C-alpha cells in the first residue's frame, strides 16, 4: 500500500496516457468548442464567462443611458434558502441553475423558463451541514460540450457539499457518473465550482477550518477516472513540483518547502484548500488558482512559512505539475485564505506588453503577475487602511509585515485590517478590457483576534482563535455599517479610478459590459448598475434577499438579459442563516453583520432582467398557458 505522503501526487502512467490520448483526439476539440461557445453572447459556459475569467461581456444593448429601464423579466426560486453563490450557466438556449445545499440543479429552457426542463435533486448526507464552515453554499456548475467523436453526451458538473462530484447529462439531467471526492467524516466538503479544461473537470476542496489538507483533482469527464491529484502541502511530488518549478523566480522558493516549512507532520492537516475561482490560458496550457490558509488559525501552533498554502499557482492542465507558485502570505496569522478570483488580461505596463493574471487577495493586496512565468508585476493595497503590511518587496515578493498587527498566543491583536474576511473574499470580480479597469467587490472590515490552543480531531473544527469583526476605519463603527467598497482599479498605474462605500459589502462580485455599465448585488439585497467609467449609480433593484452571487449576462432572441442570484448567506450571512446572536460566533461574522437582518432576510433564487422587462411572456402572454380558450356565458 502506498504511504500517505505519496497519495495523490502519484499519477499513474496509464492515467497520463489517457489524458494525453484524450488531448490528441477529442479533447482539444472540446476545449476549442468551449472557447468558441464562450464567444457567442447567447452562451455563458463557465464561471467568469470565458477562460480569462474576466466576466466581461461584449454585449452593449444595455448602456449607461438606458440601464435605468432595466426591469425584471422573469424569476425562479430554487426552493432552498442558505446563501446562493456563483451564477447560472447558459448553453444553447438552456439555463443551468445551481443552488445551496443540497445542491439541486435545474435546467430552464429560455424559450419558456416558467417550466422546469429538468431538475436534479440529490439526497445528501445531512451531516455535511455540520462541517461546512461558512453557510451551505455552492459556487456554480461547469459544462463540457460533447465532441462528435465521443458517445459521451454534453455534461453538466455539479459539486456537492457532501464531497461528491456528479456529471449530469445536460439534455436530460440524468446522472452520468458520480465520484467521491471529499469525505465529510474528516471535515472535507465541496463548495467550489467545478472547472472544465479540455476533457478534464478540475475539482477544488473545502474544509481548512477543520484542518483539511487542500487538494485539487482532475477527472476525465468521459470516464470519471482521476487523471491527477495535487495537494497544497507535503512532498514535492504530491504538490506537483518538478525541476522547472519557479525557474523564473527562484526567490519565491522551489523544492522541498511543502515539508520544510512545517514542523513535523503538521502539513498533513495544514489546510490550503481551494474553494475559489480558476482561470486558464489555453496558449500556455496553464490553470491559475490559489490556495487557502494554513491550519489552525492559531499561528503559534504551526511554525514555518507553511508552504504552499496561500499561493497563487499556475499548473499544467494535463498533469497538474506546477509551473510557478507565489506565496502571498507566508505563515498566515489572520486567515487570509487567498483563493480569490484570477482574472487574465493582456496589458501594457511600464511599456511592456504583458500577459497578466490579476488577483485581489484577501490579505489586502491586489497582485498582478506575469502569468507566463510568475513575475510579480504589481502589488497594491486594496485600500489605504490596510495595516498588517507596510509594503510588498517587489524583488523578493515578500510582503513586509507590520509586527504590531501580527497575532500570537497570549496576545489579543486589535484593530487588525483587514479582518479574517480579508479586504476581498469569494467575490468573482470582472475586468473591462476596453476601459482597462478591474471592478472589485471589496470588504472593509477589521478585527480583534485572540488565539487559543486546541487539539486536532479529524472532522472537527480546528480554528483556535476568537474574533471580533467590525467596519474598517472608513465605516460607521458605532452602527456596524460601511463594511464594504466597490472600486475600479487600473493595474498599469495601480490607481483606483473610482471607489464607493457599501453598507455591507458586495460579497458576490461584479459583471462588466461593453455597454459601459457594471453590475453587482449587495448583501443588503440591492442589485446595482453603475457607470463603468465614473462609478455613478445608474439603477438599482431591491431583490427578495441579499445577493452573494455574481451577475452574468446573455442574449436570447436578440435581447440582452442580465441575471443574478439572490439568497443572502455565505460567511457574512451565518448569523442570519443560523440565527446566531453571540458577536464572536460564526468566526466573528455575527458581530460584524449584526445589522444585516434589518435589510434583508433569507431567500434563494434567480432574477433575470432586461430592458423594459421584455421577455418570453411579454412577447407572448399566452405562452405556457394551459388553455387560451375563454368560455363565455357558460356554467
Amino acid at each position, binding site marked *: 500500500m502506498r504511504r*500517505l505522503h505519496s497519495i495523490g501526487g502519484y499519477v499513474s502512467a496509464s492515467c497520463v496516457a489517457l489524458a494525453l490520448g484524450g488531448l490528441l483526439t477529442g479533447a482539444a476539440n472540446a476545449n476549442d468548442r468551449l472557447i468558441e461557445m464562450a464567444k457567442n453572447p447567447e452562451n455563458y459556459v463557465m464561471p467568469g464567462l470565458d477562460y480569462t475569467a474576466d466576466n466581461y461581456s461584449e454585449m452593449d444593448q444595455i448602456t449607461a443611458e438606458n440601464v435605468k429601464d432595466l426591469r425584471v423579466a422573469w424569476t425562479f426560486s430554487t426552493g432552498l434558502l442558505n446563501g446562493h453563490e456563483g451564477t447560472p450557466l447558459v448553453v444553447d438556449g438552456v439555463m443551468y441553475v445551481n443552488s445551496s445545499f443540497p445542491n439541486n440543479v435545474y435546467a430552464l429552457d429560455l424559450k419558456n423558463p416558467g417550466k422546469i426542463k429538468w431538475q436534479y435533486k440529490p439526497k445528501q448526507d445531512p451531516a455535511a451541514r455540520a462541517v461546512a464552515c461558512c453557510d451551505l453554499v455552492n459556487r456554480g456548475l461547469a459544462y463540457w460540450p460533447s465532441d462528435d467523436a465521443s458517445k459521451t453526451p454534453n455534461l453538466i458538473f455539479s459539486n456537492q457539499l457532501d464531497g461528491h462530484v456528479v456529471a449530469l447529462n445536460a439534455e436530460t439531467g440524468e446522472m452520468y457518473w458520480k465520484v467521491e471526492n471529499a469525505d465529510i467524516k474528516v471535515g472535507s466538503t465541496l463548495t467550489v465550482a467545478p472547472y472544465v479544461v479540455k476533457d478534464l473537470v478540475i475539482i477544488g476542496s473545502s474544509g481548512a477550518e477543520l484542518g483539511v489538507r487542500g487538494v485539487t483533482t482532475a477527472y476525465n469527464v468521459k470516464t*470519471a*477516472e482521476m487523471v491527477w491529484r495535487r495537494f497544497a502541502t507535503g512532498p514535492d511530488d504530491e504538490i506537483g513540483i518538478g525541476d522547472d518549478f519557479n525557474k523564473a523566480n527562484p526567490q519565491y522558493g522551489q523544492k522541498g518547502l511543502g515539508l520544510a516549512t512545517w514542523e*513535523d507532520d*503538521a502539513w498533513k492537516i495544514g489546510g490550503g484548500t481551494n474553494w475559489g475561482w480558476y482561470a486558464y490560458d489555453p496558449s500556455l496550457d496553464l490553470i491559475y488558482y490559489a490556495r487557502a490558509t494554513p491550519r489552525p488559525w492559531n499561528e503559534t501552533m504551526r511554525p514555518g512559512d507553511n508552504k504552499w498554502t496561500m499561493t497563487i499557482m499556475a499548473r499544467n492542465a494535463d498533469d497538474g505539475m506546477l509551473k510557478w507558485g507565489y506565496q502571498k502570505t507566508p505563515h498566515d496569522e489572520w486567515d487570509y485564505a487567498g483563493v480569490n478570483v484570477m482574472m487574465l488580461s493582456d496589458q501594457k505596463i511600464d511599456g511592456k506588453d504583458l500577459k497578466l493574471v490579476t488577483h485581489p487577495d484577501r490579505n489586502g493586496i491586489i497582485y498582478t503577475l506575469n502569468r507566463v512565468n510568475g*513575475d*510579480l508585476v*504589481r502589488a497594491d493595497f486594496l485600500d489605504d487602511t490596510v495595516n498588517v503590511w507596510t509594503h510588498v518587496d517587489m524583488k523578493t515578493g515578500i510582503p513586509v509585515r507590520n*509586527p504590531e498587527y501580527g497575532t500570537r498566543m497570549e496576545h489579543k491583536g486589535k484593530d487588525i485590517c483587514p479582518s479574517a474576511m480579508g479586504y476581498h473574499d469569494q467575490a468573482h470580480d470582472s475586468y473591462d478590457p476596453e476601459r482597462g479597469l478591474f471592478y472589485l467587490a471589496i470588504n472593509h472590515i477589521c478585527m480583534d483576534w485572540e488565539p487559543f490552543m486546541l487539539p486536532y*480531531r479529524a472532522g472537527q473544527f480546528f480554528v483556535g482563535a476568537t474574533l471580533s469583526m467590525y467596519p474598517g476605519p472608513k465605516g460607521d463603527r458605532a452602527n456596524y455599517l460601511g463594511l464594504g467598497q466597490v472600486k475600479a482599479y487600473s493595474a498599469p498605474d495601480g490607481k483606483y479610478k473610482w471607489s464607493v462605500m457599501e453598507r455591507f459589502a458586495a460579497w458576490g462580485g461584479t459583471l462588466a459590459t461593453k455597454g459601459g455599465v457594471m453590475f453587482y448585488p449587495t448583501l443588503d439585497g440591492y442589485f446595482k448598475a453603475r457607470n463603468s467609467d465614473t462609478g455613478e449609480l445608474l439603477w438599482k433593484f431591491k431583490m427578495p434577499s441579499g445577493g452573494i452571487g455574481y451577475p452574468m449576462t446573455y442574449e436570447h432572441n436578440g435581447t440582452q438579459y442580465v441575471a443574478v442570484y439572490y439568497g443572502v448567506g455565505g460567511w457574512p450571512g451565518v448569523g442570519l442563516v443560523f440565527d446566531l446572536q453571540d458577536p464572536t460566533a460564526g468566526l466573528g461574522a455575527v458581530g460584524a453583520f449584526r445589522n444585516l437582518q434589518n435589510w434583508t432576510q433569507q431567500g434563494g433564487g434567480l432574477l433575470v432582467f432586461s430592458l423594459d422587462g421584455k421577455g418570453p411572456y411579454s412577447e407572448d402572454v399566452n405562452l405556457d398557458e394551459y388553455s387560451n380558450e375563454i368560455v363565455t356565458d357558460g356554467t
Partner: protein
Amino acid sequence: MTTILRITGAALAGALALAVTAGGALAYDGTNCKAPGNCWEPKPGYPEKVAGSKYDPKHDPKELAKQGDSMKEMEARNAKRSENFKKTGTWVYDVSKL
C-alpha cells in the same frame, strides 16, 4: 520582472512610524529568510519548535492519518466504479454491486 516598490502614502507613514517602535515581540516582519521561500522566524519569546513547548499541539498520529486513509479508500472505490463504467457504459455507484 518589475521590482518597483509600491506602497501607498498612508501605508508608508505607518511603516515609518513603526520603524521607531519596532523591537521585542514586534520584530518578525517576514524579511529575514533562511532560504528563498523560507522566511518565518519565531516571534521573540516564542519557540522555534512547538513540540515539547507549552504550545505543543500534541498531534495524535492516528488522527493525522485519517484524511489520507479516507482519500485512499475513496480513490479505490472510484477506480472500481470508473473501470466498470468503461466496461459496461453504466455507472454503478454502489461498489458492493461491482
